[in-house]
Protein backbone atom coordinates (compact mmCIF):
# COMPACT_ATOMS: atom_id res chain seq x y z
CA UNK A 1 0.00 0.00 0.00
CA UNK A 2 2.77 2.35 0.98
CA UNK A 3 4.62 1.61 -2.25
CA UNK A 4 1.56 2.16 -4.37
CA UNK A 5 1.03 5.58 -2.81
CA UNK A 6 4.61 6.61 -3.41
CA UNK A 7 4.43 5.41 -7.00
CA UNK A 8 1.23 7.34 -7.57
CA UNK A 9 2.82 10.49 -6.17
CA UNK A 10 5.93 9.99 -8.32
CA UNK A 11 3.70 9.62 -11.36
CA UNK A 12 1.88 12.83 -10.47
CA UNK A 13 5.19 14.67 -10.09
CA UNK A 14 6.25 13.55 -13.56
CA UNK A 15 2.85 14.45 -15.02
CA UNK A 16 2.85 17.86 -13.45
CA UNK A 17 5.19 19.42 -15.96
CA UNK A 18 5.44 22.66 -14.01
CA UNK A 19 3.11 24.46 -16.37
CA UNK A 20 1.45 27.68 -15.27
CA UNK A 21 -2.05 27.23 -13.89
CA UNK A 22 -4.51 29.30 -15.92
CA UNK A 23 -5.82 32.37 -14.12
CA UNK A 24 -9.29 31.77 -12.79
CA UNK A 25 -12.00 34.20 -13.73
CA UNK A 26 -15.29 35.11 -12.18
CA UNK A 27 -17.66 33.15 -10.00
CA UNK A 28 -19.36 30.74 -12.37
CA UNK A 29 -21.26 28.09 -10.44
CA UNK A 30 -22.42 25.32 -12.79
CA UNK A 31 -23.33 23.03 -9.87
CA UNK A 32 -25.23 25.71 -7.96
CA UNK A 33 -28.33 23.59 -7.35
CA UNK A 34 -26.38 20.67 -5.84
CA UNK A 35 -24.02 23.08 -4.03
CA UNK A 36 -26.90 24.91 -2.38
CA UNK A 37 -28.36 21.58 -1.22
CA UNK A 38 -25.04 20.61 0.36
CA UNK A 39 -24.73 24.09 1.86
CA UNK A 40 -28.16 23.73 3.47
CA UNK A 41 -27.15 20.32 4.84
CA UNK A 42 -23.95 21.86 6.26
CA UNK A 43 -26.01 24.61 7.91
CA UNK A 44 -28.28 21.97 9.45
CA UNK A 45 -25.20 20.10 10.68
CA UNK A 46 -23.81 23.33 12.15
CA UNK A 47 -27.06 24.17 13.96
CA UNK A 48 -27.64 20.65 15.25
CA UNK A 49 -24.12 19.62 16.16
CA UNK A 50 -21.09 21.75 15.36
CA UNK A 51 -22.17 25.05 16.90
CA UNK A 52 -23.57 23.52 20.14
CA UNK A 53 -20.60 21.16 20.47
CA UNK A 54 -18.12 23.98 19.97
CA UNK A 55 -19.92 25.98 22.68
CA UNK A 56 -19.36 23.06 25.03
CA UNK A 57 -15.74 22.66 23.94
CA UNK A 58 -15.27 26.43 24.39
CA UNK A 59 -15.68 25.92 28.14
CA UNK A 60 -12.32 24.12 28.17
CA UNK A 61 -9.68 26.67 29.27
CA UNK A 62 -8.02 28.46 26.35
CA UNK A 63 -4.44 27.18 27.01
CA UNK A 64 -5.68 23.58 26.81
CA UNK A 65 -7.52 24.31 23.56
CA UNK A 66 -4.44 26.00 22.10
CA UNK A 67 -2.39 22.88 23.02
CA UNK A 68 -4.85 20.65 21.12
CA UNK A 69 -4.61 22.92 18.06
CA UNK A 70 -0.80 22.98 18.32
CA UNK A 71 -0.70 19.20 18.52
CA UNK A 72 -2.96 18.85 15.48
CA UNK A 73 -0.97 21.44 13.46
CA UNK A 74 2.32 19.78 14.38
CA UNK A 75 1.07 16.31 13.46
CA UNK A 76 0.04 17.74 10.09
CA UNK A 77 3.47 19.23 9.41
CA UNK A 78 5.09 16.16 7.76
CA UNK A 79 2.29 16.32 5.19
CA UNK A 80 3.04 20.01 4.62
CA UNK A 81 6.74 19.14 4.19
CA UNK A 82 5.83 16.60 1.49
CA UNK A 83 3.69 19.20 -0.29
CA UNK A 84 6.46 21.82 -0.14
CA UNK A 85 8.89 19.31 -1.66
CA UNK A 86 6.39 18.42 -4.39
CA UNK A 87 6.10 22.14 -5.14
CA UNK A 88 9.88 22.48 -5.35
CA UNK A 89 9.94 24.84 -2.36
CA UNK A 90 12.87 23.13 -0.68
CA UNK A 91 13.67 25.96 1.77
CA UNK A 92 10.08 25.91 3.10
CA UNK A 93 10.27 22.11 3.37
CA UNK A 94 13.46 22.35 5.40
CA UNK A 95 12.02 25.19 7.49
CA UNK A 96 8.95 23.07 8.31
CA UNK A 97 11.09 20.00 9.06
CA UNK A 98 13.15 21.93 11.61
CA UNK A 99 9.92 23.33 13.04
CA UNK A 100 8.55 19.80 13.35
CA UNK A 101 11.70 18.56 15.11
CA UNK A 102 11.66 21.44 17.60
CA UNK A 103 7.97 21.19 18.44
CA UNK A 104 7.93 17.37 18.61
CA UNK A 105 10.77 17.37 21.15
CA UNK A 106 11.07 20.62 23.12
CA UNK A 107 7.39 21.31 22.42
CA UNK A 108 6.37 18.01 24.04
CA UNK A 109 4.92 16.14 21.03
CA UNK A 110 3.74 19.42 19.55
CA UNK A 111 1.53 20.55 22.44
CA UNK A 112 3.59 23.75 22.63
CA UNK A 113 4.60 25.82 19.64
CA UNK A 114 8.14 26.67 20.76
CA UNK A 115 9.32 26.96 17.13
CA UNK A 116 7.23 30.11 16.51
CA UNK A 117 8.84 31.73 19.55
CA UNK A 118 12.26 31.40 17.94
CA UNK A 119 11.11 32.70 14.57
CA UNK A 120 10.24 29.41 12.84
CA UNK A 121 6.70 30.45 12.03
CA UNK A 122 4.06 28.27 10.37
CA UNK A 123 4.38 28.02 6.57
CA UNK A 124 1.27 26.17 5.58
CA UNK A 125 0.40 24.38 2.42
CA UNK A 126 -1.83 21.62 1.09
CA UNK A 127 -2.15 19.33 -1.90
CA UNK A 128 -4.63 21.70 -3.56
CA UNK A 129 -1.78 24.22 -3.71
CA UNK A 130 0.58 21.53 -5.03
CA UNK A 131 -1.87 20.83 -7.86
CA UNK A 132 -1.99 24.57 -8.52
CA UNK A 133 1.82 24.79 -8.66
CA UNK A 134 1.80 21.89 -11.12
CA UNK A 135 -0.51 23.84 -13.39
CA UNK A 136 -3.88 22.32 -12.55
CA UNK A 137 -6.79 24.73 -13.05
CA UNK A 138 -9.09 25.60 -10.16
CA UNK A 139 -12.01 23.66 -11.63
CA UNK A 140 -15.63 24.36 -10.72
CA UNK A 141 -16.77 25.71 -7.39
CA UNK A 142 -18.06 22.93 -5.14
CA UNK A 143 -19.53 22.78 -1.64
CA UNK A 144 -18.34 19.68 0.21
CA UNK A 145 -20.16 18.02 3.09
CA UNK A 146 -18.59 19.14 6.40
CA UNK A 147 -15.58 20.83 4.70
CA UNK A 148 -17.80 23.42 3.04
CA UNK A 149 -16.71 25.80 0.28
CA UNK A 150 -14.07 24.39 -2.07
CA UNK A 151 -13.18 23.84 -5.72
CA UNK A 152 -12.72 20.63 -7.70
CA UNK A 153 -8.94 21.05 -7.45
CA UNK A 154 -8.97 21.76 -3.71
CA UNK A 155 -11.46 18.95 -3.06
CA UNK A 156 -9.07 16.44 -4.64
CA UNK A 157 -6.34 18.09 -2.57
CA UNK A 158 -8.23 17.37 0.67
CA UNK A 159 -8.61 13.68 -0.28
CA UNK A 160 -4.93 13.32 -1.19
CA UNK A 161 -3.79 15.14 1.97
CA UNK A 162 -5.54 12.43 3.99
CA UNK A 163 -3.10 9.80 2.68
CA UNK A 164 -0.10 12.03 2.04
CA UNK A 165 1.06 12.56 5.62
CA UNK A 166 3.99 10.18 6.31
CA UNK A 167 3.20 10.37 10.03
CA UNK A 168 0.04 8.37 9.36
CA UNK A 169 2.23 5.42 8.32
CA UNK A 170 4.89 5.88 10.99
CA UNK A 171 2.62 5.97 14.03
CA UNK A 172 1.75 2.77 15.95
CA UNK A 173 -1.74 1.47 15.21
CA UNK A 174 -3.19 2.44 18.62
CA UNK A 175 -2.49 6.17 18.16
CA UNK A 176 -2.73 6.38 14.37
CA UNK A 177 -6.02 8.27 14.43
CA UNK A 178 -5.10 10.62 17.26
CA UNK A 179 -3.95 13.46 14.94
CA UNK A 180 -7.22 13.30 12.98
CA UNK A 181 -9.25 13.34 16.18
CA UNK A 182 -7.24 16.35 17.41
CA UNK A 183 -7.85 18.04 14.07
CA UNK A 184 -11.63 17.64 14.36
CA UNK A 185 -11.54 18.92 17.94
CA UNK A 186 -9.39 21.90 16.92
CA UNK A 187 -12.01 22.78 14.27
CA UNK A 188 -14.59 22.98 17.08
CA UNK A 189 -12.17 25.36 18.78
CA UNK A 190 -11.99 27.56 15.67
CA UNK A 191 -15.79 27.52 15.41
CA UNK A 192 -15.92 28.78 19.01
CA UNK A 193 -13.11 31.37 18.79
CA UNK A 194 -14.40 32.85 15.54
CA UNK A 195 -18.09 32.40 16.30
CA UNK A 196 -19.00 36.03 15.52
CA UNK A 197 -17.34 35.94 12.11
CA UNK A 198 -18.71 32.51 11.22
CA UNK A 199 -22.24 33.40 12.34
CA UNK A 200 -22.16 36.71 10.48
CA UNK A 201 -21.40 34.82 7.26
CA UNK A 202 -23.45 31.63 7.65
CA UNK A 203 -26.47 33.31 9.21
CA UNK A 204 -26.31 36.67 7.48
CA UNK A 205 -29.45 38.50 6.50
CA UNK A 206 -28.41 38.39 2.84
CA UNK A 207 -27.40 35.27 0.94
CA UNK A 208 -24.88 33.34 3.07
CA UNK A 209 -24.31 30.87 0.25
CA UNK A 210 -23.01 33.41 -2.25
CA UNK A 211 -21.08 35.36 0.41
CA UNK A 212 -19.26 32.15 1.32
CA UNK A 213 -18.52 31.46 -2.34
CA UNK A 214 -17.05 34.94 -2.81
CA UNK A 215 -15.04 34.68 0.42
CA UNK A 216 -13.65 31.26 -0.42
CA UNK A 217 -12.67 31.98 -4.02
CA UNK A 218 -11.21 35.44 -3.36
CA UNK A 219 -9.17 34.42 -0.31
CA UNK A 220 -7.95 31.19 -1.91
CA UNK A 221 -6.92 32.98 -5.12
CA UNK A 222 -5.13 35.59 -3.01
CA UNK A 223 -3.40 32.90 -0.94
CA UNK A 224 -2.13 31.18 -4.09
CA UNK A 225 -0.94 34.51 -5.49
CA UNK A 226 -3.24 34.36 -8.47
CA UNK A 227 -3.81 37.71 -10.08
CA UNK A 228 -7.43 37.95 -11.13
CA UNK A 229 -8.49 40.89 -13.25
CA UNK A 230 -11.38 42.48 -11.41
CA UNK A 231 -13.04 45.03 -13.63
CA UNK A 232 -15.97 45.50 -11.27
CA UNK A 233 -13.78 46.77 -8.42
CA UNK A 234 -11.36 48.60 -10.70
CA UNK A 235 -14.19 50.53 -12.35
CA UNK A 236 -15.62 51.43 -8.93
CA UNK A 237 -12.26 52.71 -7.68
CA UNK A 238 -11.50 54.63 -10.86
CA UNK A 239 -14.92 56.31 -10.78
CA UNK A 240 -14.10 57.64 -7.31
CA UNK A 241 -13.90 61.42 -7.47
CA UNK A 242 -13.43 62.20 -3.80
Amino acid at each position, binding site marked *: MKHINLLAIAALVVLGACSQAPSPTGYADPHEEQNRRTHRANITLDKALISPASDVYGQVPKPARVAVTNFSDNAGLPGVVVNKFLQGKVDDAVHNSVRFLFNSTLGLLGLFDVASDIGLEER*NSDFGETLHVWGAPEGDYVVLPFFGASTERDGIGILVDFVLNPLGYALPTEVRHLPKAAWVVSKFGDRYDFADSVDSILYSDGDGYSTLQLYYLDSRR*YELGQVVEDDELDDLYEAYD*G
Partner: protein
Amino acid sequence: MGKIAMMNRRMVVGGLAAALVMPGAAMAAISAGQAEILIGKVVSDINSIINSGQSEAKMISRFEGVFKQYADTKFIALAALGVDGRSASSGQKSAFIKAFTGYIANRYGSRFREFEGGKIEVVSTQQVKSRFEVLTKTKLAGQSPFDVIFIVSAKNGKFIDMHVEGISIVKSERKEIGAMLDKRKGDLDVLIRDLAKF
Protein backbone atom coordinates in the same frame (compact mmCIF):
# COMPACT_ATOMS: atom_id res chain seq x y z
CA MET B 1 36.87 58.70 -16.54
CA GLY B 2 34.83 55.56 -16.94
CA LYS B 3 33.51 56.01 -13.44
CA ILE B 4 32.27 59.51 -14.18
CA ALA B 5 30.60 58.32 -17.36
CA MET B 6 28.87 55.61 -15.38
CA MET B 7 27.67 58.06 -12.80
CA ASN B 8 26.39 60.38 -15.44
CA ARG B 9 24.51 57.63 -17.11
CA ARG B 10 23.01 56.58 -13.81
CA MET B 11 22.01 60.14 -13.07
CA VAL B 12 20.47 60.51 -16.50
CA VAL B 13 18.56 57.25 -16.08
CA GLY B 14 17.53 58.32 -12.59
CA GLY B 15 16.42 61.71 -13.86
CA LEU B 16 14.46 60.11 -16.63
CA ALA B 17 12.73 57.76 -14.22
CA ALA B 18 11.89 60.70 -11.98
CA ALA B 19 10.50 62.60 -14.97
CA LEU B 20 8.34 59.63 -15.89
CA VAL B 21 7.02 59.27 -12.38
CA MET B 22 6.58 62.95 -11.62
CA PRO B 23 3.49 63.75 -13.71
CA GLY B 24 1.48 61.09 -11.94
CA ALA B 25 2.90 62.06 -8.59
CA ALA B 26 2.16 65.72 -9.23
CA MET B 27 -1.47 64.93 -10.05
CA ALA B 28 -1.96 63.03 -6.83
CA ALA B 29 -3.05 65.16 -3.92
CA ILE B 30 -1.23 62.92 -1.48
CA SER B 31 1.98 60.89 -1.70
CA ALA B 32 2.56 57.22 -0.99
CA GLY B 33 4.31 58.28 2.21
CA GLN B 34 1.27 60.26 3.33
CA ALA B 35 -1.03 57.33 2.55
CA GLU B 36 1.18 55.07 4.64
CA ILE B 37 1.22 57.52 7.56
CA LEU B 38 -2.56 57.76 7.39
CA ILE B 39 -3.02 53.97 7.53
CA GLY B 40 -0.39 53.90 10.30
CA LYS B 41 -2.80 56.07 12.33
CA VAL B 42 -5.77 53.83 11.49
CA VAL B 43 -3.79 50.75 12.51
CA SER B 44 -2.57 52.30 15.75
CA ASP B 45 -6.15 53.32 16.63
CA ILE B 46 -7.38 49.78 15.90
CA ASN B 47 -4.53 48.24 17.92
CA SER B 48 -5.51 50.38 20.88
CA ILE B 49 -9.19 49.41 20.48
CA ILE B 50 -8.60 45.65 20.29
CA ASN B 51 -6.28 45.65 23.27
CA SER B 52 -8.31 48.07 25.38
CA GLY B 53 -10.16 45.36 27.26
CA GLN B 54 -13.33 47.42 26.82
CA SER B 55 -16.79 46.00 26.28
CA GLU B 56 -17.77 44.91 22.80
CA ALA B 57 -20.31 47.75 22.53
CA LYS B 58 -17.64 50.32 23.39
CA MET B 59 -15.21 48.77 20.89
CA ILE B 60 -17.84 48.91 18.16
CA SER B 61 -18.59 52.58 18.77
CA ARG B 62 -14.88 53.43 18.76
CA PHE B 63 -14.43 51.45 15.56
CA GLU B 64 -17.28 53.40 13.99
CA GLY B 65 -15.42 56.58 14.95
CA VAL B 66 -12.23 55.41 13.19
CA PHE B 67 -14.26 54.36 10.16
CA LYS B 68 -15.99 57.75 9.93
CA GLN B 69 -12.74 59.66 10.38
CA TYR B 70 -10.50 57.88 7.88
CA ALA B 71 -12.77 56.09 5.41
CA ASP B 72 -15.01 57.58 2.75
CA THR B 73 -18.16 56.07 4.20
CA LYS B 74 -20.32 57.76 1.57
CA PHE B 75 -18.42 56.09 -1.26
CA ILE B 76 -18.33 52.66 0.41
CA ALA B 77 -22.04 52.78 1.24
CA LEU B 78 -23.15 53.85 -2.23
CA ALA B 79 -20.77 51.35 -3.87
CA ALA B 80 -22.33 48.61 -1.73
CA LEU B 81 -25.80 49.77 -2.76
CA GLY B 82 -24.71 49.55 -6.40
CA VAL B 83 -27.08 50.12 -9.29
CA ASP B 84 -30.07 49.81 -6.96
CA GLY B 85 -29.06 53.17 -5.55
CA ARG B 86 -29.37 55.07 -8.81
CA SER B 87 -33.07 55.69 -8.49
CA ALA B 88 -32.82 56.60 -4.78
CA SER B 89 -33.69 60.13 -3.68
CA SER B 90 -31.00 62.19 -1.96
CA GLY B 91 -32.87 61.77 1.32
CA GLN B 92 -32.87 57.99 0.92
CA LYS B 93 -29.18 58.06 0.04
CA SER B 94 -28.13 59.97 3.13
CA ALA B 95 -30.36 57.79 5.33
CA PHE B 96 -28.80 54.71 3.76
CA ILE B 97 -25.23 55.98 4.28
CA LYS B 98 -25.95 56.60 7.96
CA ALA B 99 -27.58 53.21 8.53
CA PHE B 100 -24.91 51.39 6.52
CA THR B 101 -22.08 52.98 8.54
CA GLY B 102 -23.60 51.69 11.78
CA TYR B 103 -24.20 48.27 10.22
CA ILE B 104 -20.56 48.02 9.03
CA ALA B 105 -19.23 49.08 12.44
CA ASN B 106 -21.31 46.34 14.03
CA ARG B 107 -20.64 43.66 11.48
CA TYR B 108 -16.86 44.10 11.48
CA GLY B 109 -16.45 45.65 14.91
CA SER B 110 -17.98 42.61 16.62
CA ARG B 111 -15.22 40.54 15.00
CA PHE B 112 -12.59 42.62 16.79
CA ARG B 113 -13.33 40.71 19.97
CA GLU B 114 -11.58 37.83 18.21
CA PHE B 115 -8.53 40.06 17.57
CA GLU B 116 -7.84 40.65 21.25
CA GLY B 117 -4.12 40.46 22.01
CA GLY B 118 -3.36 40.85 18.30
CA LYS B 119 -1.14 43.40 16.62
CA ILE B 120 -1.45 45.04 13.21
CA GLU B 121 1.60 46.48 11.40
CA VAL B 122 2.00 48.51 8.21
CA VAL B 123 4.32 46.68 5.81
CA SER B 124 4.48 48.52 2.48
CA THR B 125 2.67 50.84 0.07
CA GLN B 126 2.34 50.77 -3.69
CA GLN B 127 0.59 53.01 -6.15
CA VAL B 128 -1.96 51.48 -8.51
CA LYS B 129 -3.48 54.00 -10.93
CA SER B 130 -5.08 56.74 -8.83
CA ARG B 131 -4.88 54.88 -5.53
CA PHE B 132 -2.43 53.49 -3.03
CA GLU B 133 -2.54 49.96 -1.69
CA VAL B 134 -1.19 49.92 1.86
CA LEU B 135 -0.36 46.38 2.98
CA THR B 136 -0.68 45.57 6.68
CA LYS B 137 -0.09 42.32 8.54
CA THR B 138 -2.23 41.24 11.49
CA LYS B 139 -0.69 38.87 13.97
CA LEU B 140 -3.06 37.02 16.27
CA ALA B 141 -1.85 34.80 19.07
CA GLY B 142 -1.52 31.22 17.85
CA GLN B 143 -2.48 32.03 14.25
CA SER B 144 -0.51 32.63 11.08
CA PRO B 145 -0.34 36.36 10.26
CA PHE B 146 -2.86 37.57 7.71
CA ASP B 147 -2.88 40.45 5.25
CA VAL B 148 -5.19 43.43 5.24
CA ILE B 149 -4.73 45.84 2.33
CA PHE B 150 -6.19 49.34 2.67
CA ILE B 151 -7.14 51.00 -0.62
CA VAL B 152 -6.40 54.71 -0.20
CA SER B 153 -7.51 57.28 -2.77
CA ALA B 154 -4.61 59.42 -4.01
CA LYS B 155 -7.11 62.24 -4.48
CA ASN B 156 -7.96 62.89 -0.85
CA GLY B 157 -6.19 60.30 1.27
CA LYS B 158 -9.36 58.58 2.47
CA PHE B 159 -9.51 54.82 2.40
CA ILE B 160 -12.21 53.53 0.10
CA ASP B 161 -11.92 49.78 0.67
CA MET B 162 -10.18 47.09 2.70
CA HIS B 163 -9.11 43.69 1.42
CA VAL B 164 -8.85 41.09 4.16
CA GLU B 165 -6.80 38.18 2.75
CA GLY B 166 -8.00 39.10 -0.71
CA ILE B 167 -11.63 39.67 0.30
CA SER B 168 -12.84 43.18 -0.54
CA ILE B 169 -15.35 44.70 1.86
CA VAL B 170 -16.88 46.80 -0.93
CA LYS B 171 -17.30 43.77 -3.18
CA SER B 172 -18.66 41.44 -0.52
CA GLU B 173 -21.05 44.06 0.88
CA ARG B 174 -22.26 44.79 -2.64
CA LYS B 175 -23.31 41.16 -2.78
CA GLU B 176 -24.69 41.12 0.75
CA ILE B 177 -26.66 44.38 0.45
CA GLY B 178 -27.92 43.28 -2.98
CA ALA B 179 -29.25 40.03 -1.47
CA MET B 180 -30.80 41.88 1.47
CA LEU B 181 -32.54 44.26 -0.90
CA ASP B 182 -33.84 41.34 -3.00
CA LYS B 183 -35.28 39.77 0.14
CA ARG B 184 -37.19 43.01 0.73
CA LYS B 185 -38.46 43.04 -2.86
CA GLY B 186 -36.26 46.03 -3.67
CA ASP B 187 -37.80 48.30 -1.04
CA LEU B 188 -34.90 50.57 -0.03
CA ASP B 189 -36.82 52.20 2.83
CA VAL B 190 -37.40 48.83 4.50
CA LEU B 191 -33.71 47.98 4.05
CA ILE B 192 -32.65 51.30 5.62
CA ARG B 193 -35.00 50.70 8.56
CA ASP B 194 -33.65 47.17 9.08
CA LEU B 195 -29.98 48.18 8.72
CA ALA B 196 -30.48 50.82 11.40
CA LYS B 197 -31.41 48.04 13.84
CA PHE B 198 -27.95 46.50 13.62
